[in-house]
């Protein structure tokens, strides 16, 4: 048995000969919040379903809490909680009934399950709504109930598959705070998939970026962003930015240039000192500048550098050549 909370070794999952996950390797340490970032269709949810024992890998092996997901799925299930992409709830039950049933299926006594429902009712702040049918809940309430259902047995490892998709900003902030609190106060390992860059940035200690079923980069958000440069100058120009990439690359202080369509990302160690020279280089090339901005790198810049595409609202946007 290994001591890693989650381990994937060359995990592949194919559907009808088409690979949704094409060889994922990752290690998540106990107590870590690991962000799994990628656009829709990148393979995030398929990976989570394999790690949660809902789906067997076609090739490769994976373990959770030290147990093989294929050979010892029962042991894995006892140690994990999961809130999947769609809140997996029965609209005909009340919130309290659903949580109590969850508790019973995890071997809690009737009294323990009832007590746990009361505790989680406080945690998710559903109040008297717990006695209402789930079909009457708002999207945010369903998400919180789904989270409570995943926590009923105090799992060691929590899988959250896009836990804030479709939530309003306030509800999203509440979920973020809960994720932090579960990790901080209980030491719970959290595997969080998200299509929101700011979510991975805000919550995850480490981030794995997945694209087309492969992890293309992994590290702390800061490390990943640092790889792009400590500052990013974004230039939007009239016409093809790639035609002037070489000229900008020669500017002193420029670490790298990524040009896609009419946009150019210039990585530099000292943005304020370099931005003027970049503007001059562009002007010398005769390229009209639409705007020129200086900012720190984002995970989207990392994604763009690695894949040539941006994540926009969960879908990748190919930069026009």
């Amino acid at each position, binding site marked *: 048995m290994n001591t890693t909370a989650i381990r994937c070794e060359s995990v592949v999952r194919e559907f009808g000969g088409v690979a949704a996950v094409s060889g994922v390797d990752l290690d998540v340490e106990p107590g870590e919040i690991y962000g799994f970032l990628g656009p829709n269709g990148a393979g995030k949810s398929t990976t989570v379903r394999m790690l949660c024992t809902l789906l067997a890998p076609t090739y490769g092996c994976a373990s959770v809490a030290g147990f093989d997901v294929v050979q010892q799925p029962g042991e894995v299930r006892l140690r994990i909680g999961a809130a999947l992409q769609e809140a997996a709830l029965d609209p005909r*039950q009340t919130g309290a009934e659903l949580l109590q049933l969850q508790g019973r299926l995890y071997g809690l006594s009737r009294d323990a399950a009832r007590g746990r429902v009361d505790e989680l009712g406080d*945690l998710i702040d559903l109040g008297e709504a717990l006695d209402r049918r789930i079909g009457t809940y708002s999207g945010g309430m369903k998400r919180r109930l789904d989270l409570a259902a995943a926590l009923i047995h105090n799992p060691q490892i929590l899988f959250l598959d896009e836990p804030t998709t479709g939530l309003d900003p306030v509800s999203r902030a509440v979920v973020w705070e809960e994720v932090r609190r579960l990790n901080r106060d209980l030491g719970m390992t959290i595997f969080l998939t998200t299509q929101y860059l700011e979510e991975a940035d805000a919550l995850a200690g480490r981030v794995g970026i997945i694209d087309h079923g492969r992890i293309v980069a992994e590290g702390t958000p800061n490390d990943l962003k640092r790889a792009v440069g400590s500052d990013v100058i974004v230039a939007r120009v009239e016409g093809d930015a790639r035609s002037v990439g070489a000229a900008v690359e020669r500017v002193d202080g420029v670490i790298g240039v990524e040009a896609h369509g009419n946009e150019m990302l210039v990585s530099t160690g000292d943005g304020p000192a370099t931005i003027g020279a970049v503007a001059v280089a562009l002007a010398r090339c005769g390229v009209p500048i639409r705007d020129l901005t200086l900012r720190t790198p984002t995970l989207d810049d990392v994604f763009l550098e690695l894949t040539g595409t941006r994540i926009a609202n969960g879908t990748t946007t190919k930069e026009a050549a």
Partner: protein
Amino acid sequence: MTAVTTAPTALRQRTEIEARPAGFFADVVTVAGRALRAVPRDLESVIPPVFIALFFFLVNVGTLQRLTEHNIPNFDFRAFQMPTAILLGVTGVSRAPALVIDVQNGYFDRLLLTPVRRLAILLGHLVADVAVAAALTVPIIIVGFLLGVRFESGPLGIVVFIGIAALWSLAFSGFGYAIALKTGNPGAVNSTFLLFFPFLFLTTSYVPKSQLTGWLKVVASWNPVTYLLEGLRSLVSIGWNAGDLAKALLAVAIVGALSMSLCFAALRGRIRRG
């Protein structure tokens, strides 16, 4: 929505809560309990079958009683019709459509994420179906009593009658679950009525086998429901006839073995497909 600001009790009690397998029997009871709780909230799944059964029971007795009793010596059409009405009421009544909804809305996955035995999910539903089917026979039997039907086999015969009817309901519902798990499509589940008609009408629903002729007589002699009806009718009209009861139970067992084989195969397939 209000943000949570106080340290929740849930976070202070980790050591007191520990997940463990609940046990197969406990799993079945838990799943069955949920399925039974859903029945009163989903009355449209049980009221129409009983209404249809009672409707045809009354209409058939009103229409055919004099004709059949006049032509067949010592024939009690009301007693003959009651088992037909019972089968009309309980055949195809199951929580399979609800299971499809569970599959569609992801709740089935939520169940699969727990340590519950996969078989217990299905058996829990089936246990609930047996209870519901047994309950559905009661109003039909009461109407039968009001029409003057009496059980030659006495009170114990009524219990056995209800039990066999419920087992038949269970056997037939296996087809619905098989389709539900295979397709996850409510429309496909509803198509089990295509099986309902040959089973319930190419048989001795309206007249004894001796009165059937030609191809229908041949088909009826191969239809397991013919023997099921004979067994149920024997409890009403004859008393305790071991041969008829054994044939009825064998008919239920054959249909049940087929439907449950399909059903468990579909469950394995769904779990494998994820």
